[in-house]
């Protein structure tokens, strides 16, 4: 039933959708609060209760978020934020080197060219290497896009566009599966019996809406 109400948003924003939306938001926030509580208890609280008092420390730091609501001492809430930013940044810059840079480079240079099993693979591999290098050039900020550099950047741009186009096509597939899953659910009893009723209701509403629009225009 909610499915159909949400679908009705596609036609136009409406009151029932608004209500469902609010209920939904309430839900989602509630669920996250429940999860957060469970996680804090199982990780920190239980251990602290077992005598590992040090675990009270993150709890205290976390509680500093309460200062968000204080006009005067708002800055205190920067402390947990700074803690999170520091940790995440540290992890990010150290993890990213291998997985996102070195391994990708390694994957590129191990592509066989002279030792490729057939010429087609060799050409493909040369293309990939060219593509990676020119895409990197495309992201240069300290050079204008002119001259030979500009040509290379253009090639990079082409690779970027084609790659993203292909990705787009690929993603359409994913999105359609979602709709398919939902419809498979709708076509099963008991939702199937609700469908005609809902469709009629929707049609009535649309007709009414159109008429109202026409009247107001006139």
């Amino acid at each position: 039933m909610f499915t159909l109400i949400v679908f009705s948003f596609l036609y136009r924003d409406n009151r029932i959708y608004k209500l469902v939306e609010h209920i939904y938001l309430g839900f989602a926030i509630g669920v996250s609060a429940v999860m957060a509580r469970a996680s804090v208890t199982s990780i920190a609280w239980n251990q602290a209760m077992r005598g590992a008092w040090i675990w009270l420390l993150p709890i205290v730091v976390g509680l500093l978020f309460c200062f968000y609501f204080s006009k005067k001492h708002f800055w205190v809430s920067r402390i947990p934020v700074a803690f999170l930013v520091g940790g995440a940044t540290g992890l990010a810059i150290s993890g990213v080197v291998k997985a996102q840079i070195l391994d990708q480079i390694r994957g590129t240079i191990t592509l066989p060219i002279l030792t490729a099993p057939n010429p087609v693979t060799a050409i493909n591999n040369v293309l990939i290497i060219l593509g990676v290098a020119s895409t990197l050039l495309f992201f240069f900020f300290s050079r204008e896009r002119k001259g030979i550099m500009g040509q290379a950047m253009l090639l990079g741009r082409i690779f970027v566009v084609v790659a993203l186009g292909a990705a787009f096509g690929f993603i359409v597939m994913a999105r359609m599966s979602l709709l398919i899953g939902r419809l498979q659910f709708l076509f099963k009893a008991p939702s199937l019996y609700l469908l005609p009723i809902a469709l009629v209701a929707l049609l009535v509403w649309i007709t009414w809406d159109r008429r109202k629009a026409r009247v107001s225009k006139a």
Partner: protein
Amino acid sequence: MSEQGSFLTRLGKMDRRFMYVVILIAVSIPLLRPLALPLSVSPETRLFYDYVQSLPSGASVGLTFDCQPGALPELYPQMLAILQHLKARQTRMICVAFFAEGAMIAHNALTDVFGPPNSHPNYGKTFVNLGFIAGGETGMAAFAKSVKGAAPQDYYGNPTAKMEVLSGVDTAKDFALIIEFAYGTPGIPEIMRQMQSPYQVKIAAAATALIATQIMPYLKSGQMVGMLTGLRGAAEYENLIGKPGEAVAGMDAQSVAHVAIILAILVGNVGYYSERRKQKRSM
């Protein structure tokens, strides 16, 4: 001539809502009346299947349920197919989630394959649901470093320290394979950084089609042993393990939807060009 022109131009300016109706109908028809189109198996799926097939019984397989309910139309059929396959292969299944909702999704999937997990005789012996570990990538790092430390209790509140299924499983190194149900972040890049590269554990991805493009390079570079792609991957896997299910049924609808969108793009372009031509002529 002018009439045709205006028709074509109108095609280019069609209300988007009309598009919605077309898509809805296009997808519905094959669902109600399957066309039974043939389906080939893509190499990534084949790699995935072969790797699981080669696991000895009793091998520890980690399953990370990193998704939200929104991904279920694609991932749930994959989960069922993979769990059934692992069950048949008699491996250990260690389920964990780095998405809050993943723990419950794991619970649901295990329930569909084994019946209510917590009362199942083999629970804690051959499979376990460790529940949700918060913190995204940091959570992954903690889990990789110490499995039982990051999850002192399982999803149902049982202590994990002495569980049979976890005996000998201390760090990410001790897994024969980790299957990541990938949907967003934390997902494949994070698991690569926190588990694969520091601990050299084998990773297989069961991903939404969307994620698949992003993680293709990891498969090419050999960091991943296989990949299932979206609903299609699920359908192929269902065929490989000989249990065609909902995913296979959905593939026809997929075909029709793709065709509908391609047609829409063509129509849009025809409309656009006829409008442009008209503008040129009037100039």
